[in-house]
């Protein structure tokens, strides 16, 4: 059945049907994307006290929150991929976080601290697997001027390029506190040299 036949059957002309479809499409798709983006803001993240009381407080002490040039990386910049399909995949996986929110798994700072190592290991593992994808939204080996880096940093970065390392292999705990016993655990899991 063609669109024209469908139109005739319903007693609607083809053109208005088409326009209606387009308008509805824009509204539905637009509102879906709008809602998706709404959950992709720092304000949304810290509307849960689990995030506001723990990770957000620590993050405010770090260079990704406050620095010389005033460029800021907010929660989703580091924790949500920018590409649409990966973003939606991450959002679907975030339903697990809703479950734990309901269960109150980390609803006190003490519970959060008790789970910190596990939570951190999840993030480190993901970042290791996706080649520190979110870091590379902003940081790029090709754009680094090794002349302007400290000699020690430049050496280590060149080494990292040669050995095919990824950001998270070395840069752990840069925006949040490190869990107790992180080094041994990360080494055992192959996430740290």
């Amino acid at each position: 059945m063609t669109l024209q036949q469908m139109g005739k059957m319903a007693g609607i002309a083809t053109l208005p049907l088409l326009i209606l479809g387009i308008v509805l499409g824009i509204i539905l798709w637009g509102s879906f994307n709008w809602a998706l983006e709404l959950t992709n803001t720092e304000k949304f993240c810290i509307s849960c006290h689990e995030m506001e009381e723990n990770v957000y407080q620590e993050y405010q002490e770090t260079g990704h929150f406050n620095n010389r040039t005033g460029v800021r990386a907010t929660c989703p910049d580091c924790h949500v991929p920018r590409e649409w399909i990966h973003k939606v995949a991450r959002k679907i996986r975030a339903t697990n976080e809703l479950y734990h929110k309901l269960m109150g798994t980390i609803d006190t700072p003490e519970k959060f601290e008790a789970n910190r190592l596990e939570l951190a290991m999840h993030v480190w593992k993901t970042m290791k697997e996706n080649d520190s994808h979110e870091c590379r939204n902003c940081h790029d080996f090709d754009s680094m001027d090794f002349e302007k880096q400290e000699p020690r940093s430049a050496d280590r970065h060149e080494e990292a390029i040669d050995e095919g390392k990824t950001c998270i292999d070395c840069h752990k705990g840069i925006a949040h506190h490190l869990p107790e016993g992180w080094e041994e655990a990360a080494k055992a899991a192959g996430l740290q040299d």
Partner: protein
Amino acid sequence: MKNTIITATATVFMLLLVPDTLSAGVESLRGALPLDAPAKIFSAKRQQKVEGGFERSWKQQPPPIPHEIDKDRISLRENTCLKCHSKENHEKEKAPEVGKSHYIDRTGKKLTRISQRRWFCNQCHVPQVEASPLVGSTFQPLPQKK
């Protein structure tokens, strides 16, 4: 009667003058500024970066830190200094190793992890800033045996 008037007048004048004479030469810590004026701002001193480190002033001096440490954190659970300076990591990070003495507890027992009483690095090791000393010093180290 005349005397009484003179004494009374003098007393009133003296009382009026007292607050002024008392406050002269005494200055609040924020300087001789009106109450509603903002305090004097001192420019922040940056922590120094010195390639190769600082020379020790005497043999047993805990070496000063020749780099910025404002991004580093030491707490009950984490110590970011050890990311580079620990026994395990110093070689690959090309950083000076924590002294051997720091892996010995107070009974002389050797430890695999850094001794708890050495955990807070900046109790002894401190960064330096480019600031002229407030008080001069004529300190000289003892001549060292070569």
